[in-house]
Every structure is written in C-alpha cells, then in structure tokens.
C-alpha cells in the first residue's frame, strides 16, 4: 500500500487566522470564546460562541480581503471563504505547484462541511418570502453547496484530480482527510488537499442547536468557562467556526521534490452507531470500533498511542467517549495524555476533525499535548491524563484523533511523526 504523508497545513480558527498563530495561543491556554457579535442574538438562548477574530490581517486576525477579492466573496457563503483561506495557506505551505497537466490531474481536492451555506439558505428564504423568486441571486446555489469549497479551490489552483466533498456532520473533517488519504493509497491521486470548513454562527444555527439541547446556555456571564470537556459542571458545546485543510501526499512523491514532511497518516477507521440521530450509544461501542479499526489499519497496538485528541465536545457524550478510549487502551491508559481542544476553540462542526488532526500533527512535531481548559473537576476514577488547564510536554510518537457526528457516524485518524 502506498504511504501518505502530510506536507502542508492551513487553518482559520477562533484563536487566529494561521496555523502557527493558532497553535501558539492554543498551547498558551487561550480561549477563542466570547459574546456573539456576528448577529443580533437577543432572540436566542445561547449568547456566546467562538468567533473568528476579524481584523486587518495583522496579529493573527482574519482579513477576508487577504483570501478572496470582494467581487468573488459576494458569491460565496462564509464557510467557502474560510475554506479558501485555509486551503490557500496549506497549498502555499506545501510548496506544491504542479507544472504539467499530468501533475494537475494527479492533484485533487476533498474539503467538506457539516451544514454548508446555512446563512445563504436562511437569508435567501427570507428574500424569497419578501420579494419573490425573481430576486433570488444566480449565486445563491453555488454559494451554499457544500462541494463548492472543493470546486473553488480547484479553480484557483488548477487542480484537476478527484474533486469531492464529505458531509458527515461533526466528523466531516476527519472523514475527508481519511478518505483523501485512501484515494492516494489506492492510486487515484498523488496529492490531495483535504479538510473541512464551517460557518454556523447565525441565528438559525444557534436556534437549531439550542433546540437539540446541544449547546451550553448557562455561562453568559463567563463565556470562556463555557467549553469544559469532561468537567462535571459542563452543560453543552460552544459553537465555533472556521476551517482546517491539509495537503496529503504520497510519500515518494513528497521525498522526490524534497518537501517538508510533517507527519504520516498511519491509520483511518470508520463506523456507524445505528442507534440515535443525535446521541451516541451509551456503551460507546461505535467510537470504540472506529478507533480499533484505525489502529488495525495502522498495524499498531493500543499501547503505541501517546496522545489522543478527543472529540470531547463538553456535552454528556464526553464520558461515553472516555469510557470507549479507556476500554481501548486497557492497561496502557495510565501512560496516555488525552485532551479536548474544543475547550479552547469551541466546536467547529464539519471543520473540527480537520483542525484537530492538524493539532495532532503539531503535537507530534513539537512534542507537546495541548491543554483541556476549564477542567476543574474530572470524572471520578479517570485513569487517563486529561491535561487539565495546562499543556503537557511529553514524548509523542503516535497521535489519535476522534471525530463523531450526528446520525451516529464515527471517524478516527492515527498519525505518526514524519521523520520516523
């Protein structure tokens, strides 16, 4: 089987625009959560979220003009803008510039989203009601379609290989990276630009997740304390937004051009719960099977794992995942660090798995596990180090990232250091 490595990284998160800018703040224990400014939130229950810091592009702020010109931006929903920014960073970071048609045809894109152009759909529905169908923009459909991140990226860079988009709710980003790696392993492409993007912070998005009873509601006076995975006082997830994109490359292809190799995708596992539309099965067996499948594909034992980036959303499901991880690790549980970076950046839904995979890659690079913020009271009897409140310097040779989504869909990525 062909081996797949990661040669480029890009992200836009509630901590910052940019990989290093985000990572530095994450390791320092900063939070991207705050009061909602994106829309008038006076009618919804939850009044805080993790918003991308917009600005002039300096000091880690996100300046849309840096990533798409204003004329093009009017034709896309924000999730596409974020995806374009992250993909552009990743492609640039990789240094991959296909010089021939053959190379362009061997370079593909697989960037998904959980929901896609939610705001575009909501706004257009209101316009339709108020002004009638003749006022619906010709750009409405291409601004909202989930696969248009992949489409826009392919057009910008001339990547003519497989063009695809994953839609598996909150496991989208992990599935996209795993599936894209498979396309390389199987020989459909040599290079894949893969990840996820999401822009759900809107009245309809908050109202919808409030109705599911999934969001934190009680920390309006201290939003940065709201995302608290595993803590006994957690009360739901904090909505985030952004995008994470990686460049995946066949190992020999990367070596031949002298590319910087961040990490290797060692294993990928998938499973379905067949249980409930929003809740994981209480025994966590779906997540367990996803992790076990990824380990088997990697040819590793549970005792080889050093760091786990948990799905850990700060909901009741946290302890179900914890149980599944402890079952998987068995005796090895005592030597593993597991954290949830959603404690810092909130839940980026379809982008979460991709951003968190990048955090695992940086954990492998820098030999540091990011912290779980706000974890004051861990569950009783927990055997795994959950990195409460402070990053952990430690040896990390193998990292595992979990992503679980509504509908009972699970994905696990196992990654190893690129220099081994």
């Amino acid at each position, binding site marked *: 089987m062909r081996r797949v490595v990661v040669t480029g990284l890009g992200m836009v998160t509630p901590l910052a625009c940019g990989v290093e800018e985000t990572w530095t703040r994450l390791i320092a224990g900063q939070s991207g959560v705050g009061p909602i400014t994106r829309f008038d939130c006076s009618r919804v229950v939850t009044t805080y979220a993790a918003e991308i810091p917009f600005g002039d592009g300096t000091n880690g702020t996100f300046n849309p003009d840096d990533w798409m*010109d*204003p*004329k093009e931006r*009017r*034709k896309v929903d924000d999730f596409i803008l974020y995806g374009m920014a992250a993909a552009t960073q990743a492609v640039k970071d990789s240094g991959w510039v296909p010089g021939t048609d053959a190379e362009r045809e061997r370079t593909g894109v697989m960037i998904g989203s959980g929901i896609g152009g939610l705001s575009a759909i909501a706004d257009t529905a209101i316009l339709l009601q108020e002004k009638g169908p*003749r*006022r619906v*923009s*010709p*750009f409405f459909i*291409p601004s909202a379609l989930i696969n248009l991140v992949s489409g826009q990226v392919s057009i910008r860079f001339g990547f003519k290989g497989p063009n695809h988009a994953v839609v598996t709710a909150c496991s989208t980003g992990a599935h996209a990276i795993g599936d894209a790696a498979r396309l390389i392993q199987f020989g459909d492409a040599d290079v894949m630009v893969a990840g996820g993007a999401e822009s759900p912070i809107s009245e309809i998005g908050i109202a919808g997740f409030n109705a599911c009873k999934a969001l934190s509601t009680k920390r309006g006076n201290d939003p940065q304390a709201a995302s608290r995975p595993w803590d006994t006082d957690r009360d739901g997830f904090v909505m985030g937004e952004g995008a994470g994109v990686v460049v995946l490359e066949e190992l020999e292809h990367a070596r031949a051009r002298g590319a910087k190799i961040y990490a290797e995708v060692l294993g990928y596992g998938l499973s379905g719960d067949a249980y409930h539309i929003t809740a994981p099965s209480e025994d966590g067996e779906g997540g367990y099977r996803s992790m076990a499948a990824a380990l088997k594909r990697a040819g590793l034992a549970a005792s080889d794992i050093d760091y786990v980036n948990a799905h850990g959303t700060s909901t009741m499901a946290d302890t179900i995942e914890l149980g599944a991880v402890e079952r998987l690790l068995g005796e090895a549980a005592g030597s593993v660090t597991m954290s949830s970076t959603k404690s810092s950046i909130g839940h980026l839904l379809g982008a979460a798995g991709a951003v968190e995979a990048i955090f695992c890659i940086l954990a492998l690079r820098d030999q540091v596990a990011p912290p779980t913020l706000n974890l004051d009271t861990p569950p009783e009897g927990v055997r795994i180090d959950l990195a409460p409140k402070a990053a952990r310097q430690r040896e990390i040779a193998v990292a595992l990232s979990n992503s679980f989504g509504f509908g009972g869909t699970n994905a696990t990525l196992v990654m190893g250091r690129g220099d081994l």
Partner: protein
Amino acid sequence: MSDIADRVKKIVVEHLGVEEDKVTENASFIDDLGADSLDTVELVMAFEEEFGIEIPDDAAETIQTFGDAVKFIQNAA
C-alpha cells in the same frame, strides 16, 4: 451623463469590481468587463431593483453592453 447612466455605472462597478473608466458606452459586460453568464443575470436583477422595472428574460439577452443597459432602462423607466 444622465442620472440613469450614472446609476447604471455605479451598479456595474460594484458588481463586477471594475474601474469606473472601463465602463464605456460600448463596453461589453462579458468581453470587456470580465462578467460571466451568472454575473449578467445578477446585473439585470440589480437594474430591476434600482429602477423598479421588470426586464423579461428575452429582453435581458439583448443587454450586452453598458450602452444597451442605459438605453433599455431609459425607454422602460
């Protein structure tokens, strides 16, 4: 230049992101101003909105240049 021409030009500049001096009488939206077929649909909608008129699809197809647009709107408004 007439008030209508000014307002049409403003819309074209905004929607197509072009310099004002490029928007001349005979400038074609597609050939000279970088529009694609979806941009022209949106332009026609913007003209309808600005001038409170209705431009039927078959008439919209005859509006190829800035001058065409101004002429059509002068006659319709």
